[in-house]
């Protein structure tokens, strides 16, 4: 069997032997000689004035080395972010606290328990103040969250993106005219897309060590964007980028929550430099809930105006999006990602108005899907409600309103964006043609005939990912505050060593996505070097070129493409060397199974070992050829990528208890070309489960004073193995034309398509009871209550 792999093959993951034997290295596993431990004192109030901090007792306790407050770190400035719209976060609360869990003081001690005990002995006096918690209240500006800001509304995103005032006004008039027509129906629902806790199973962790002789900071962090962490630490502490050695080893899940530079990632290295000792901080689960970013948090009203024949004349979404107290990495840009996909795969006039408001709650930022699950949720829920209202099959209504294939290439979405490629009708039809889909409907009808409540839900979805084009810098997405200004391009470096092995060094690093495997496949396919001779490394700023990291389903589409191009350059050079050694034409050289072969001459070949050995002996190379065998590529696509798909599921609902059971789940996804189907399916599985989690269980509940009531896993139920079904996955393949691999990205698709699929199914089940909508999460009590309310 060949050990090289073409794209499109299942290869068992190369990262797994370490991870199944307990030998993989995560940040909390890092131990350094004399290492100290940090703990934080965190605010119990959502909004309060700090009147005094008494750390005398803490400082006198065993093992305590230092207690730091805002007075010690004010000179470092605020937390660097990427999109500086809103209030910057102080590294430690300075005079006031703006959300529960905000860090007020940092304690460093010899052991973790000593640090925690001392943190408990730091006495902070607070004057509690009223907190702005409700989103409509925040948007009203009744009370401002930050004195220095003009309004709690930080920005309002609208569609069509970039349209002038005249165009916007024209759209408003067009929608009003559609509503005035006699033959139209207007269907409207106010819906909540609740706040969530990302909840990677690995808590965030950071270790830092300063070497004063080398003037070098070594830093381990569980981060999705280690280059930015290195840049930010360097910028704040005044250390050049090449003297910050930042490492993200195994990252135990990210989902967007590790796509930030956090105060601890600055303060721990700062303390390490102050104290001349390595310092570690690992958040506990409660801290992960209150001080790591949260996701979602929209309330909005979606409205469709359309004919009784299923022609949608206008779609509107008017929403308030909760940004929380401080703006971090992307914060206000997250709803903007919803604007990108605001009109989904459809062609109808679309007007979104998303008010991004600040509140006295923890900051929101990217959580798997990031703005796109919210936007698609509203769109696909209201498409379902509209179809129900006019008595048409929702699949037929969707089919009728898709952007037609004739508009590709060059299709523009009504939201105002150019789409790379799409074939929406074929994808939806593939779902409708599946026996699984008919079986689900038949089973629903059978259950109903037995007097049970059952429903089938359907949703299509559109995603935008693979960021992206270098020109995004023009939209304000630069890395400037992190000290490493970089567009959203990808980078890859391929080096063939003198023994014929290859190193592939990439800037983006995984948190479970299997980059070692996928990148080995890409480079093996390009060069013919055998998979087991390729070593992929990432997450180490000493070795890797600057890259913005792993998020937004971008790694394969952007950094993968860069590695593909770098490997192509290596292959071109190797072909010249092989042609020289084999006395053949360069055009006839073919790489396969670890060797170069001459087309048409089966006896003529030379191994990669020989080619590599020769490459490092310049006197043996063709005249004028530079020695060595490596190439670096920076890849900037011309557009983002736009995956899409269809999901369907069958549910039953217990009419006595409101308990929802998922009986079957079927997808037809289209993420363009597929490199490793096993890994791609795995991404979909996990994404769907997170959407199920939002639809059925998860809810970051704050009380009226801004206290998070769900800061532990017992109060924040995530799906278990017993709560979810097996997933039946299918694909259509519509390659993108914006990268040479044809891949679009798949990390978030499962999450973007799933929550409303499930809610649509439950509403289908409850329709006979008169229920038109139930807000997520669909916990039994809420479903039961919806049935009672509809009956009364």
């Amino acid at each position, binding site marked *: *069997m*060949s*050990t090289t*792999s073409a794209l499109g*093959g*299942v*290869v*068992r*993951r190369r*990262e*797994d*032997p370490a*991870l*199944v*034997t*307990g*030998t*993989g*290295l*995560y940040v909390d*596993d890092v*131990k350094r000689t004399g290492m100290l431990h940090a703990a934080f004192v965190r605010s119990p109030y959502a909004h309060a004035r700090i009147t005094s901090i008494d750390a005398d007792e803490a400082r006198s306790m065993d093992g305590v080395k230092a207690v730091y407050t805002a007075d010690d770190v004010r000179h470092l400035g605020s937390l660097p972010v990427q999109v500086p719209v809103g209030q910057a976060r102080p590294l430690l609360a300075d005079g006031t606290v703006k959300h529960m869990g905000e860090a007020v003081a940092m304690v460093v001690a010899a052991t973790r*328990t000593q640090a925690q005990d001392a943190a408990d002995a730091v006495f902070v006096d607070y004057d509690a103040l009223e907190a702005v918690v409700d989103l409509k209240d925040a948007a009203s500006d009744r009370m401002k969250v930050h004195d220095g800001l003009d309004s709690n509304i930080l920005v309002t995103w609208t569609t069509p993106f970039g349209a002038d005032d005249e165009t916007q006004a024209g759209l408003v008039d067009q929608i009003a005219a559609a509503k005035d027509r006699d033959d139209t129906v207007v269907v409207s629902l106010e819906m909540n897309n609740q706040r969530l806790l990302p*909840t*990677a*199973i*690995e*808590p965030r962790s950071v270790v830092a060590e300063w070497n004063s002789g080398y003037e070098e900071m070594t830093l381990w962090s569980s981060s999705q964007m280690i280059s930015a962490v290195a840049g930010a630490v360097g910028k704040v502490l005044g250390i050049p980028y090449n003297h910050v050695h930042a490492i993200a080893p*195994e*990252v*135990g*899940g990210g*989902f967007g929550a590790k796509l930030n530079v956090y105060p601890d990632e600055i303060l721990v290295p700062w303390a390490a430099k102050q104290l001349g000792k390595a310092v570690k901080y*690992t958040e506990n*689960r409660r801290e992960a809930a209150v001080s790591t970013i949260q996701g979602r948090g929209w309330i909005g009203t979606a409205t469709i105006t359309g004919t009784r024949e299923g022609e949608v004349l206008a779609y509107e979404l008017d929403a308030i999006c909760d940004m929380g107290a401080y703006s971090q990495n992307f914060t206000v840009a997250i709803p903007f990602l919803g604007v990108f996909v605001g009109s989904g795969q459809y062609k109808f006039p679309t007007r979104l108005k998303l008010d991004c408001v600040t509140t006295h709650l923890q900051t929101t930022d990217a959580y798997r899907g990031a703005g796109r699950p919210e936007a698609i949720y509203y769109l696909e829920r209201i498409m379902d409600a509209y179809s129900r209202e006019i008595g048409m099959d929702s699949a037929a209504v969707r089919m009728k309103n898709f952007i037609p294939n004739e508009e590709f290439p060059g299709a523009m979405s009504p939201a105002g964006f150019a789409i790379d490629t799409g074939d929406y009708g074929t994808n939806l039809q593939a779902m409708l043609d599946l026996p699984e889909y008919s079986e689900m409907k038949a089973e629903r009808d059978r259950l109903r005939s037995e007097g049970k409540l059952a429903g089938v839900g359907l949703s299509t979805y559109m995603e935008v990912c693979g960021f992206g084009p270098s020109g995004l810098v023009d939209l304000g997405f630069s890395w400037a505050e992190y000290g490493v200004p970089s567009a959203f391009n990808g980078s890859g470096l391929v080096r063939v060593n003198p023994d014929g092995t290859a190193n592939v060094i990439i800037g983006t690093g995984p*948190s*479970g*996505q*299997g980059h070692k495997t996928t990148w080995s496949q890409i480079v093996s396919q390009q060069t013919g070097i055998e*998979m087991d001779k390729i070593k992929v490394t990432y997450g180490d700023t000493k070795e890797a070129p600057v890259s913005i990291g792993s998020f937004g389903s971008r790694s394969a589409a952007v950094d993968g493409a860069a590695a593909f191009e770098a490997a192509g350059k290596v292959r071109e050079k190797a072909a010249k060397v092989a042609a020289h050694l084999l006395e053949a034409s360069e055009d006839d050289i073919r790489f396969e199974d670890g060797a170069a072969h001459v087309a048409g001459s089966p006896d003529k070949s030379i191994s990669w070992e020989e080619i590599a050995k020769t490459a490092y002996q310049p006197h043996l190379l063709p005249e004028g050829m530079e020695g060595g065998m490596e190439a670096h590529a920076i890849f900037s696509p011309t557009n983002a990528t736009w995956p899409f798909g269809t999901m369907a599921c069958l549910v039953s609902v217990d009419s006595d208890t409101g308990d929802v059971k998922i009986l079957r789940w079927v997808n037809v996804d289209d993420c363009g070309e597929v490199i490793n*189907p*096993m890994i791609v*399916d*795995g991404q979909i*599985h*996990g994404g*769907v*489960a*997170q959407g199920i989690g939002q639809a059925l269980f998860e809810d970051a509940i704050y009380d009226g004073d801004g206290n998070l009531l769900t800061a*532990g*896993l*017992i109060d924040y139920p*995530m799906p*278990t*193995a*017993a709560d*979810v079904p*097996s*997933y039946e996955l299918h694909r259509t393949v519509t390659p993108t034309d914006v990268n040479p691999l044809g891949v679009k990205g798949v990390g978030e698709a*499962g999450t973007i398509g799933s929550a409303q699929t499930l809610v649509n199914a439950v509403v289908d089940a409850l329709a006979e009871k008169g229920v038109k909508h139930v807000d997520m999460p669909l916990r039994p009590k809420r479903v039961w209550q919806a049935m009672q309310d509809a009956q009364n």
Partner: protein
Amino acid sequence: MSLTVNGESVSADVEPRTLLVHFIRENLDLTGTHVGCETSYCGACTVLVDGKSVKSCTMLAVQAAGATVTTIEGLAEGDEMHALQEGFWERHGLQCGYCTPGMIMSAAGLLAENPSPTEDDIRHGIEGNLCRCTGYHNIVKAIDYAASKLRGETPAPAEWEVNA
């Protein structure tokens, strides 16, 4: 206190409040056992204590005095992977790998009690272990693979054809 960990006798003085998971990670440097919540909910710290799966953050280290503890590092015999480790690899039962050691040890406890679990048995058997990456689909298949192998049977075929 003295106990046996992965076949070796271990003696140590520990603070009474030390949790077993911290003893395993900090005192014994066996960092394959992970901490996810310290509240006995996520299961990332699951080990075998006298053959039964236990969340090691739910026990004080001193409660394990005299016991036989097996962690992920001690599951395989020699260089060959245990059937569960092999199953997780073969059936893509892991992504980030953080919950994996606990998940595997929990599955080891399950298979010790029930060598022929149904899909439903597996799903309920690992209900106490949270995974945020996989959606559990392939974890269930991985455990089924291992159960078949341990019974001396050929595992059900994968959902895909493996090239390498």
